[in-house]
């Protein structure tokens, strides 16, 4: 699960390599992740200066980026998920820089890339061709796809790189749903590993919940992904920039693979 800054950090090759090697079963991102991935794939560039363009009211109002709304509408008509259809378009229309597109990689490799949109939070929601119902339908399809994947979480790993709200909130609701069904089938989904990588300085005692007087109580990745949901599992927090934590995780996985081969 990732915030959009992961894509802006330029670590796509590491993520796509892990996807190609079968180390990633699903990726979840927010609507901004979709925009950065799409723009990078289309023109090899992304990210505008908010402070510059908000002065004239031009922030976010760029024609080619607005085409994402048409892709979302098309996905809704075809009963497709948002991430799947965006990946399909990037791959099949052979966007020039699709080699660094996580969405296209997901489509090629049949790995779900789910997009969890908050209406009004993304620049493309400003555009006249934005169909909010289509966003609701396709992003909800992605929520159910993500939840379906989460049914196999027992003995698995769930990681959050830089998503303060979307990742912990989506994960929490999906986990409740899959645990509900597992309970009815006399199964459990309790033993798994969580990892949160972010920039905050949280104490070494992060496996205990922060007190409500501590402002970090409201940092959801901590209480939701490192404490409340992993009582029988293991949780880890690493402070760092995504441009370092993701390459380091990739390096550690490579080392582990080398040791196993030997």
């Amino acid at each position, binding site marked *: 699960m990732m915030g959009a800054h992961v894509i802006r950090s330029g670590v796509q090759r590491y993520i796509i390599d892990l996807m190609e090697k079968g180390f990633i079963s699903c990726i979840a991102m927010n609507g901004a992740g979709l925009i950065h991935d799409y723009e990078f794939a289309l023109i090899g560039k992304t990210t505008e200066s908010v402070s510059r363009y908000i002065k004239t009211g031009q922030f976010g109002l760029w024609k080619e980026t607005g085409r994402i709304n048409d892709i979302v509408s098309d996905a809704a008509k075809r009963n497709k998920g948002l991430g799947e259809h965006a990946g399909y378009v990037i791959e099949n229309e052979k966007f020039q820089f699709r080699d660094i597109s996580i969405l296209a990689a997901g489509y090629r490799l049949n790995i779900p890339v789910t997009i969890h949109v908050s209406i009004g939070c993304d620049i493309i929601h400003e555009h*006249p061709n934005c169909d909010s119902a289509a966003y609701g339908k396709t992003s909800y399809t992605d929520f159910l796809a993500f939840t379906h994947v*989460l049914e196999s979480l027992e*003995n*698995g*790993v769930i990681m959050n790189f830089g998503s303060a709200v979307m990742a912990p909130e989506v994960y929490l609701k999906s986990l409740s749903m899959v645990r509900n069904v597992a309970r009815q089938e006399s199964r459990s989904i309790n033993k798994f590993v969580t990892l949160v990588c972010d920039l905050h300085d949280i104490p070494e005692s992060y496996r205990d919940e922060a007190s409500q007087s501590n402002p970090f109580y409201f940092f959801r990745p901590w209480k939701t992904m490192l404490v409340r949901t992993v009582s029988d599992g293991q949780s880890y927090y690493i402070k760092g920039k995504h441009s370092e934590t993701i390459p380091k*995780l990739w390096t550690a*996985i*490579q080392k582990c693979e080398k040791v196993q081969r030997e």
Partner: protein
Amino acid sequence: MKLFDRNKLEIMPLSERNHDLTYETIIDLAPYQIKHEAFAHVSKAVHKARSNNALVI
């Protein structure tokens, strides 16, 4: 309730935008020095999950 009329917006081509990030921002694959022991724990869990057909998100 009156709503904002989006059709009044002037939308510009991306070619007129200044971009803060370019393709050169993308980092090439190369190993990194690792100090934090959590990376080893999580990478073992990732391998184990793949072997057991459990998921890694």
